[in-house]
């Protein structure tokens, strides 16, 4: 006999309510619902003789199973990370953010080297700052070919903009290798990993965009007030920061979009 639409179906109603309360990845949701249905139907079959009707047996089976809220709370809670897992994810996220920042600094070092070779050391190194006498003596000692303190400081600054930033980039590369290696060992399911990766990418995008805007403004300010000297120092940082912000923003969008949180709202 085909059941009428208004026939009571306690197990179906229970599964609908449980589904609406679960906050699990699709596969885990389907798995729990399949096991729940299997359990409830088996339980109802065992109770039908005692209950008198299948509907009453289903009601009894549902009652013994626990409320949907109780089961959903246990299932959603089982997915939460423990203190150790949360610490590992936090540490990894901070490491990933640091690696991104260091790599952007390394890229700015490469760009500074390019500026040095194309426009000369003045474009990067001639920052409009005054130098104390002790610093002047140091600069003139390591750049004996320089005729003035400003010239020696410019040569030193343009060289440091390359070497120190490249050292930071190298550290970023090493950290990146460590981060990639550790990523596979982190706890979490597919959607939690997407949320984590998307969150880290989003934070990196915001930080790099902020740095890019600040450095671009500093480059413009230097150009307006002092001419081209030292503009490359800021510009070599602004360009990779903005490029990194776009790349990280796209990565964040790609990862977070696949979670499609709006579908949960639409289905309720």
């Amino acid at each position, binding site marked *: 006999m085909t059941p009428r639409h208004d026939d009571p179906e306690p197990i179906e109603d229970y599964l609908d309510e449980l589904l609406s309360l679960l906050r699990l990845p699709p596969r885990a949701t389907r798995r729990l619902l399949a096991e729940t249905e299997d359990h409830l139907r088996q339980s109802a079959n065992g109770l039908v003789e005692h209950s008198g009707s299948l509907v009453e047996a289903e009601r009894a089976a549902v009652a013994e199973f626990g409320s949907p809220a109780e089961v959903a709370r246990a*299932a959603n809670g089982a997915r939460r990370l423990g203190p150790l897992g949360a610490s590992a994810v936090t540490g990894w996220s901070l490491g990933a953010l640091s690696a991104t920042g260091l790599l952007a600094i390394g890229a700015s070092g490469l760009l500074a080297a390019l500026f040095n070779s194309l426009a000369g050391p003045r474009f990067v190194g001639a920052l409009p700052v005054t130098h104390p006498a002790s610093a002047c003596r140091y600069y003139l000692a390591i750049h004996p070919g320089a005729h003035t303190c400003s010239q020696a400081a410019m040569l030193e600054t343009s060289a440091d903009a390359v070497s120190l930033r490249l050292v930071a980039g190298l550290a970023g590369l090493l950290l990146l290798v460590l981060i990639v290696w550790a990523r596979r060992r982190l706890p979490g399911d597919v959607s939690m990993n997407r949320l984590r990766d998307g969150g880290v990418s989003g934070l990196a995008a915001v930080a790099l965009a902020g740095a890019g805007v600040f450095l671009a403004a500093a480059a413009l300010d230097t150009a307006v007030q002092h001419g081209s000297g030292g503009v490359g120092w800021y510009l070599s940082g602004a360009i990779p920061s903005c490029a990194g912000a776009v790349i990280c923003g796209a990565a964040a969008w790609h990862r977070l979009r696949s979670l499609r949180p709006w579908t949960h709202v639409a289905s309720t």
Partner: protein
Amino acid sequence: MDLGKGQLDLMLLAVLEQSPAHGYAIIAALRARSDGGFDLPEGTVYPALHRLESRGWIVSTTTAVNGRRRRVYGLTSKGERALRDGRRDWERTVGQIRAVLAVAP
């Protein structure tokens, strides 16, 4: 009787120590072995089983029974070690509580 997560996990491992079983049978065994004492909501056992599986303490396989896929859980060697350690800790705790509760002569 209220159960903590650790105690429920330990009892689930103990049930699976004897032989692999599906969820319904695990709950039935839990109830039978406790003589009905641990009458917890049946549905909360499945999330606990999933948690144990994510830790690598148990493993599940699916089999077809009367045309329906049924998931059967079994203990892993890591789960056997966890059960052994859990039993030892439990015995120690129970011994300490028993010593404290003992009526002084």
